[in-house]
């Protein structure tokens, strides 16, 4: 049964992807080969069975022909145990049989023969051979099933472990990709690679590879066996099936168009529904409901039409397959019957061919199915490999400088820094500045001015194009990223907490931190009372429920920063999505965190800005002005304009 609604994904380079896929399975190559060989053996055994079944049939049909010939007649005549009356009757019956044309009447006459005579004439059946064949067939079926089972187990093992490895690889890759990648790609896209694509590869690879091997073996094997058994029958069976398949191919080709169309229409409709549902309030208040229903109706109708056609055509596959099967079956029967009557073959051959026809036609559809599946495997693995092939962070082996975070004083110098996210567009032109230990640097600018760019550069998330950033006399080019990260505390506005306990979240990557230290940090930021009110205290789980407010989440991230205890601080000041009172609490906590640290603050509050030792004013990504509040105001430039705009009447 073809699956409805499944997108046909075409891979860009089927061969290349499959090659790569197979080679990345190299840890399991031995197992894979074993499994495929088992699949092949299982198929071959399956192929020999019809032949044996054919012999079986012939043996049974021996039981249909009475054993009447010169020899038996003589034996009956000479047998002393049979009385004369019976012998006479036998002779009369024999005469009648010779005249009789209708076989059934002949048999009736034979049945009427005396018991002792009948024992001679009754068909001779080789019972021990039948027994032998039955046992042989049972063993063949059993062995084939066992092979099949083992092969399934191995494939399951391989595909699941392969999927697991792929997932791990993707997850690890996330950690070694430059941030640029994440700024340019959607989270959903990467997520679907981890789950959907890996699933597609794991599941379909499992089925398709073994199906393909089994089908090919069965297909070739059945052709060989058919020709080996009888070439006329073989040609009949093949021609009959092929006629059916051409017929089916024609219909399939026709329906492809509707499948694609259906997928597009479904996508359009989904998009429209999403748009209207998520803009519900606007649709309503703009009185757009009528319009929306009309448009929906239009799209829905379009979907309905190609939906019907594609369903109809895909529904045809099953009956047509059935007809093809029957057609081959009838052809085999009729031609076989002809040959039997002319004594070219025995009846058993027909029985064998009835199975061969099935063994011959099934693999064709299965191969087609496996190939489509492999197509989607290739497409999915392409997406996975594409991700795994993304350019990684630059190599750090040549870096030999290092800074001990306990000894760093906290001086940073920007020297003619030039930077652009793309090579062709520099956004920071020649920026120089100097900060002293313990200073506060405010970064201000309108939304979208690129305030995070500075954070990106300081943390070496992005590398500068030219110029230098010097921390305590050491160029960041000469420091590893890990080393730099150790020197900085970073508290961002979008509070990032993970699924775990409060303790886990505060401790994070500092396994040696004791509970006392955690409590101390919580106390400093004003969290300890709140945590004590939670069921479980530090062991309380952080989840999506409302038990922990946005502000409290922010406090937890500040506590996490406290634990880190580094000489530099990057702080994203809370804006108004926290209510006023918590905001104050957060502010106090942040002030404490800034104490004694060289702090870079993405500032929103004017008081912070005014108190800063240095204000960096950003516009369109570039630092266009710098200085303290008074200097900048007297300059009457962008900062002054920005500052005043709020109070313009």
């Amino acid at each position, binding site marked *: 049964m073809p699956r409805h609604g499944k997108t046909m994904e075409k891979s860009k380079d089927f061969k290349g992807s499959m090659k790569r896929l197979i080679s990345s399975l190299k840890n399991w190559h031995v197992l894979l080969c074993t499994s495929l060989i088992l699949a092949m053996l299982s198929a071959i055994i399956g192929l020999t069975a019809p032949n044996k079944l054919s012999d079986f049939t012939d043996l049974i049909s021996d039981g249909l022909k009475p054993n009447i010939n010169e020899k038996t007649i003589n034996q009956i005549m000479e047998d002393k145990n049979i009385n004369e009356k019976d012998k006479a009757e036998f002779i009369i019956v024999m005469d009648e049989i010779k005249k009789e044309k209708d076989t059934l009447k002949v048999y009736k006459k034979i049945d009427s023969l005396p018991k002792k005579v009948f024992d001679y004439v009754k*068909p001779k059946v080789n019972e021990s051979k039948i027994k032998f064949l039955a046992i042989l067939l049972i063993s063949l079926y059993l062995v084939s099933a066992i092979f099949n089972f083992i092969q*399934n187990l191995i494939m399951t093992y391989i595909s699941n472990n392969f999927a*697991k490895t792929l997932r791990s690889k993707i997850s690890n890759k996330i950690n070694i990709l430059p941030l640029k990648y994440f700024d340019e790609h959607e989270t959903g896209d990467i997520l679907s690679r981890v789950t959907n694509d890996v699933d597609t590869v794991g599941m379909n690879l499992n089925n398709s590879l073994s199906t393909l091997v089994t089908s090919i073996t069965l297909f070739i094997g059945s052709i060989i066996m058919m020709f080996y058994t009888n070439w006329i029958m073989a040609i009949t069976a093949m021609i009959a099936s092929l006629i059916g398949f051409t017929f089916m191919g024609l219909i399939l080709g026709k329906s492809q168009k509707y499948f694609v169309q259906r997928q597009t229409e479904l996508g359009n409709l989904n998009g429209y529904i999403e748009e*209207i549902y998520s803009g519900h309030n606007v649709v309503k*208040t703009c009185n757009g409901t009528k319009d929306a229903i009309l448009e929906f109706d239009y799209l829905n109708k379009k979907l*309905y039409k190609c939906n019907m056609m594609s369903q*109809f055509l895909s529904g045809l596959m099953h009956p047509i397959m059935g007809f093809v099967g029957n057609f081959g079956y009838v052809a085999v029967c009729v031609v076989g*019957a002809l040959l039997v009557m002319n004594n070219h073959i025995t*009846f058993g051959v027909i029985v064998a061919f009835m199975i061969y026809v099935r063994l011959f036609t099934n693999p064709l559809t299965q191969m087609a199915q496996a190939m489509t599946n492999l197509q989607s495997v290739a497409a999915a693995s392409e997406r996975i490999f594409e991700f795994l092939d993304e350019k990684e962070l630059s190599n750090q082996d040549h870096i030999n400088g290092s800074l001990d975070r306990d000894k760093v004083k906290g001086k940073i110098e920007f020297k003619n820094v030039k930077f652009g996210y793309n090579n062709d567009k520099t956004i920071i032109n020649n920026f120089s500045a100097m900060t002293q230990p313990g200073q506060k640097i405010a970064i201000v600018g309108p939304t979208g001015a690129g305030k995070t760019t500075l954070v990106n550069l300081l943390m070496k998330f992005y590398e500068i194009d030219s110029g230098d950033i010097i921390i305590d006399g050491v160029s960041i080019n000469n420091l590893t990223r890990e080393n730099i990260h150790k020197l900085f505390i970073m508290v961002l506005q979008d509070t990032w907490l993970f699924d775990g306990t409060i303790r886990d979240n505060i401790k994070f990557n500092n396994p040696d931190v004791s509970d006392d230290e955690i409590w101390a940090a919580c106390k400093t930021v004003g969290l300890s009372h709140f945590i004590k009110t939670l069921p479980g205290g530090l062991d309380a789980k952080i989840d999506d429920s409302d038990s922990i407010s946005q502000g409290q989440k922010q406090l937890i991230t500040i506590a996490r920063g406290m634990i880190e205890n580094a000489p530099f601080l990057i702080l994203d000041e809370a804006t108004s999505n926290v209510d006023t009172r918590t905001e104050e609490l957060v502010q106090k906590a942040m002030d404490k965190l800034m104490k004694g640290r060289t702090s870079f603050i993405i500032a929103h509050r004017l008081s912070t800005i005014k108190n800063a030792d240095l204000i960096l004013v950003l516009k369109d990504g570039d630092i266009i002005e710098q200085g303290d509040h008074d200097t900048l105001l007297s300059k009457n430039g962008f900062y002054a304009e*920005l500052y005043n705009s709020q109070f313009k009447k």
Partner: protein
Amino acid sequence: MLKLLSKFKFTEYLMIILSVILMYVQVNLELKIPDYMKEITELINTDSSTMNDILKQGLYMLGCSFGGLLLAVIGGFIAAYLSSKFSFNLRNRIFKKVQSFSTSEIKKFQTSSLITRTTNDVTQFEMFIAMGLSMIIRAPLMAFMAVGKILNENIEMSILVGCCVLTLLITISIIMFIVIPRFEKVQKLIDKVNGVTRENLTGIRVIKAFNAEDYQTNRFEEVNNDLTNTQLFNQRVFAVMNPIMTIVMNGLTLGIYIIGTFLILNAHMIDRIDIFGSIMVFTQYGMQVIMSFLMLAMIFMMWPRVTVAAKRINEVLDEKLSIEDGSIKYVETEEVGTVEFRNVSFKYPDADEYLLNNISFKANQGDVIAFIGSTGSGKSTLINLVPRFYDATEGEVLVDGINVKEYKLETLYNKIGYIPQKAVMFTGTVESNVAYGNTDNEITIEDINTAIEIAQANEFVSKMDKGIDSHIARGGTNISGGQKQRLSIARAIARKPEIYIFDDSFSALDYKTDSVLRKALKEYTEESTMLIVAQRIGTIINADKIIVLDDGECVGMGTHKELMENCEVYKEIALSQLSKEELENA
């Protein structure tokens, strides 16, 4: 489930009956084939038969097969028609129902869930009907008719077929029993893998800043292992299924042969050919019986999923609307552009606590009324009562002197220009977005241009390659957040409403654009009333009346100056954003 199916029309019921009849004939024809097969077998083993007899039987066989195909094609067409028509209608009903929902219903279901209910759930159902019309009818028909055929034929062989069916069904049941609970677990683990990866992606900066890559990797590996092991277990259990199925099917054939041999050896000569034919027939019928039972099992496996889908769809269709449309259509009201709250309290239907408590105020034509307060103070809820996203639990909300509940929604909405916090963009052009809902072509091109100008959107619209005819992508992804918000404001302006409702619509704009826009708007519509929810003091500092909310209570009402003197909460908010001198200078 049945409730959804009961929506079929009379003609559609006729079609269902017709397809049952077609199916019946088709199954009959298909079951004839082994009969002819038997005839041929017997003919071959009878010396007296001629080639013509065999050919004749062969033609009958082909005829039956072709007839079956034809009927299947007709039946398939009916099934495709019915199922796609059904899903068409169902989608339409759901969509219309959702359109009549108010915010509280949307919130209850959640937008994403409503989307899947309209699309995926319906598709599930559609598939079930499409397959059902063939399988559900066909499988039992086939099973019973095939069983009927073989029972008359030979009792020993029938028992064997029965045993095989039983073995298969028991195996499947056991496997399902073991595996189904674990399927749910797999789903949960997949969600977890997704969750950890999502965390990893959203927190990439923090993780790097803390050098916590390994920490995250360990967390990921934990769920990854869990997932792999559970899935491995499931699939191992499933690995048993295939071999057992083949063994049963092959065993059936072999069993029939062995039984047949015994029967033949002990039978009279006259009966032997008949038994031999039975062997051939049974291998065919037996397979048919087993296949139909397998199909039935498959339907049972589909059943739970479809019932869940049906339940989810019914939940939407049966949802009681909390907002009923009023009756006042076109009236000349005494007052124009006024909004009045009279002792309004509000709580969610099943909540204990009130979100708004006894709020009263009146906005006259041309007034600018601002609402401020911390998150959760109820300011958004308050203005949502005007366009009836919710209805007041107690008290009255009046627009132009008439209770909002009495208006026809369309009439009410014609008076209101509502701008949400998060701008909504529709696929189309700048023009179609600004003129959204313009069914009667009341909005002229001049209106659109003016609106764009006032909303400060001209600056970027004029730079777009086709001006107001420029394409807006789905969700407005090709323009920035601030630009979207400006177009969304332009949309409200173009409708020339009596009353503007800004639900925190200015936060997405920078300070400068915010102030210029408000100034331009004020100049353009002297007489329009504005209700503004804001976070920034700067946005509302010049409002005619500022209403300060705290925990659903109105704790202050007046101008900025007045409030600075007599409202503690307001002062606190103001001071957290601006310094003393700035406030005094203002």
